[in-house]
């Protein structure tokens, strides 16, 4: 229980520090945000981006020490509390300080009924709390243990942003991983998971901020709830990944651009948009696709609104400069170490230093475009994305059915000022997504645009005949309730550990495939070893872990083993002290490459039992249905 409280306390501290940092930036830019929600969303997101970039700079100069991170965080949190208290005092002297939206703030003729608003709020709170249960449990998500958490842990161990040649992810843009590093430095992986859950909540808040000037405040809350309860979003909120971080930063960038260009609320918002866009570029290469979509939006606005042309041009220039300044260090770092700023992509342009031995990356592989690339594909893809997400990255990341069900309603409703521009940006992203990267979780950046459009269709249902209006509202409520039910029940297995009734170790023993091997490894040789592992889950091992697949691809070591006796000296020479072998016992679930186990078996057959002695062995039944045998083996 104490461990859980500590994780929550750390996330609150980080949030306070980030919010204070963002508030400092907003006030430095003389941007007065009267809306509390917008202030929190803009402030916290800017603070997280700036704080994460600051940690990266500390890492570049070798100062990533948890005590230093802790002192800076505490100072930031106390400064924020002091600032908020003094603001409260200065405001309480006035008669009142509540922001009153103008009538123009409610473009829809009819505001959503209170019952609908209340229902949407209940659904969103249920989904968020359900996801919180998962976020508060130690993570067992493969990608998180492979690099989202593993890299921050390794950086903290080395006190710097070390380059790991056999970790392809180590030269990715890693801003969100810097947030996780922040949490791990002060607590551990659970705090990192909670921080990503917070990113989901901020993402919903950013959707409200984006939607409010377009559909009005109350419908904007509906849009925020719709964005929050999307099955893929609630699923991602349970684990420390980076897709929600990307969606948050792109949405904040879009909302700030909207204020600067569409609402003409001041050019300083372009700086905010630039920092947020830089945050997106520093999170994932995918942000480059969103930049293309934003460029399409700029062209659209310049084409449609002549008086804004100069402003649009200025916005593109300012955002580009600020974004490149914010995210540049990650691309320069990748270029420095790999000779390719977007490694491992565009290897056709940026030739690798050393040739890959096996299956080198293609920028546009067939496996990433399961829907093909046809003229009508972008239209029909909406059906397949909704109905068959398993082909496109898994149903865990799906956008759900609400968008497919209601967005055709845009053909029936009135035009809404501003919505066209949003839809152009969304359509451009959809097209680029279809052409380049067909994975459902890469659609997260356009979910807020879809949510705004759905909210507008719902608002226009007020013009339906009574029975059709009732049926439409009931259908939407049914879908939202189903989403919330899925989110609330998805993490029921984690309820005991999330509330502290079950210890984290006991939970991991049941749920995490590599936990037993990690416990044995940590007890046996701790940090004094180097593991070559078939499984990509590395976080729970104290020693450095190299993925066998990547090592094989880069070195082709298996080709150098012509006699079984050569394997052990070769692995020792490469620095490995132990192996983690994984063998599939049934065809279900993740399948492991048999190359290394076969080489070890050949070596044992040739050299007898003394070769590659087993230190720990066990079977594990994973939730994907796979049954595997793990062996922790000494390289000997």
């Amino acid at each position, binding site marked *: 229980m104490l461990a859980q409280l500590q994780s929550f306390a750390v996330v609150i501290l980080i949030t306070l520090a980030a919010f204070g940092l963002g508030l400092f930036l907003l006030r430095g830019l003389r941007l007065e945000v009267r809306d509390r929600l917008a202030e929190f969303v803009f402030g916290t997101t800017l603070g997280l981006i700036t704080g994460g970039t600051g940690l990266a700079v500390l890492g570049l100069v070798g100062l990533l020490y948890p005590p230093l991170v802790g002192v800076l965080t505490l100072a930031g949190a106390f400064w924020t509390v002091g600032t908020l208290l003094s603001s409260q005092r200065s405001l309480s002297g006035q*008669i009142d300080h509540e922001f009153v939206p103008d009538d123009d703030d409610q473009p829809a003729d009819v505001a959503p009924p209170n019952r609908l608003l209340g229902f949407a709020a209940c659904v969103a709170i249920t989904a968020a709390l359900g996801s919180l249960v998962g976020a508060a449990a130690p993570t067992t998500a493969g990608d998180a243990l492979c690099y989202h958490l593993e890299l921050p842990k390794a950086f903290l161990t080395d006190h710097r942003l070390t380059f790991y040649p056999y970790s392809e992810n180590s030269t990715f843009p890693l801003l969100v991983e810097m947030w996780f590093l922040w949490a791990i430095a002060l607590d551990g992986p659970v705090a990192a998971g909670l921080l990503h859950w917070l990113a989901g909540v901020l993402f919903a808040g950013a959707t409200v901020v984006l939607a409010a000037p377009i559909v009005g405040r109350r419908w904007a809350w509906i849009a925020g709830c719709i964005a929050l309860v999307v099955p893929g979003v609630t699923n991602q909120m349970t684990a420390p990944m980076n897709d929600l971080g990307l969606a948050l930063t792109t949405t904040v960038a879009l909302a700030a651009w909207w204020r600067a260009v569409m609402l003409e609320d001041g050019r300083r918002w372009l700086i905010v948009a630039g920092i947020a866009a830089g945050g997106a570029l520093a999170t994932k290469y995918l942000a480059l696709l969103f930049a293309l979509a934003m460029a399409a939006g700029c062209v659209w606005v310049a084409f449609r609104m002549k008086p804004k042309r100069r402003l649009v041009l200025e916005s593109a220039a300012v955002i580009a400069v600020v974004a490149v300044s914010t995210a540049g260090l990650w691309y320069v770092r990748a270029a420095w170490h790999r000779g390719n700023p977007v490694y491992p992509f565009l290897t056709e342009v940026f030739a690798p230093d050393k040739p890959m031995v096996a299956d080198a990356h293609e920028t546009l592989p067939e496996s990433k475009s399961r829907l093909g690339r046809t003229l009508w594909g972008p239209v029909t893809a909406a059906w397949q994305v909704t109905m*068959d997400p398993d082909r496109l990255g898994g149903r865990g990341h799906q956008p759900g059915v609400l968008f497919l069900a*209601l967005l*055709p309603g845009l053909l*029936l409703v009135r035009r809404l000022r501003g919505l066209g521009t949003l839809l152009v940006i969304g359509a451009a992203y959809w097209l680029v997504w279809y052409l380049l990267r067909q994975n459902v979780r890469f659609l997260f950046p356009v979910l807020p645009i879809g949510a705004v459009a759905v909210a507008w269709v719902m608002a226009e249902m007020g013009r339906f005949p009574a029975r*059709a209006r009732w049926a439409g509202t009931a259908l939407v409520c049914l879908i939202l309730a*189903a989403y919330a039910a899925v989110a609330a029940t998805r993490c029921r297995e984690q309820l005991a550990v999330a509330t502290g009734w079950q210890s984290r170790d006991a939970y991991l023993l049941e749920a995490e495939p590599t936990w037993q091997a990690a416990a044995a490894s940590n007890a046996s040789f701790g940090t004094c070893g180097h593991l070559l592992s078939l499984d990509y889950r590395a976080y729970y091992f104290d020693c450095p872990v190299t993925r066998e697949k990547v090592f094989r691809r880069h070195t082709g070591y298996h080709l150098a083993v012509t006699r079984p006796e050569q394997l052990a000296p070769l692995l020792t020479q490469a620095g490995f002290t132990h192996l983690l072998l994984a063998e599939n016992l049934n065809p279900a679930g993740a399948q492991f490459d048999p190359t290394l186990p076969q080489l070890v078996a050949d070596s044992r057959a040739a050299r007898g039992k003394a070769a590659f002695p087993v230190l720990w062995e066990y079977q594990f039944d994973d939730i994907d249905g796979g049954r595997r045998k793990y062996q922790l083996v000494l390289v000997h």
Partner: protein
Amino acid sequence: MIAPIREVDPPPGKRSRTHGDVRRLIASLFLEDAGQPRRPVPAIARWKAWLLIAWATVATLVYFAAMLDVI
């Protein structure tokens, strides 16, 4: 010194919702209807509305069937 002839309006951010409601209430007591009632918004045709509802229902049913591995 020239005295100001009226107080400057407070910035919009300093007005409360209650304040605005009271202003509107008082204004409605003293001001007559401008004679230009707000133009009613035309309803969406029945068939269009039901077409959208039908599409949304079919899509939702197929979706849940697919997610429950019924089809």
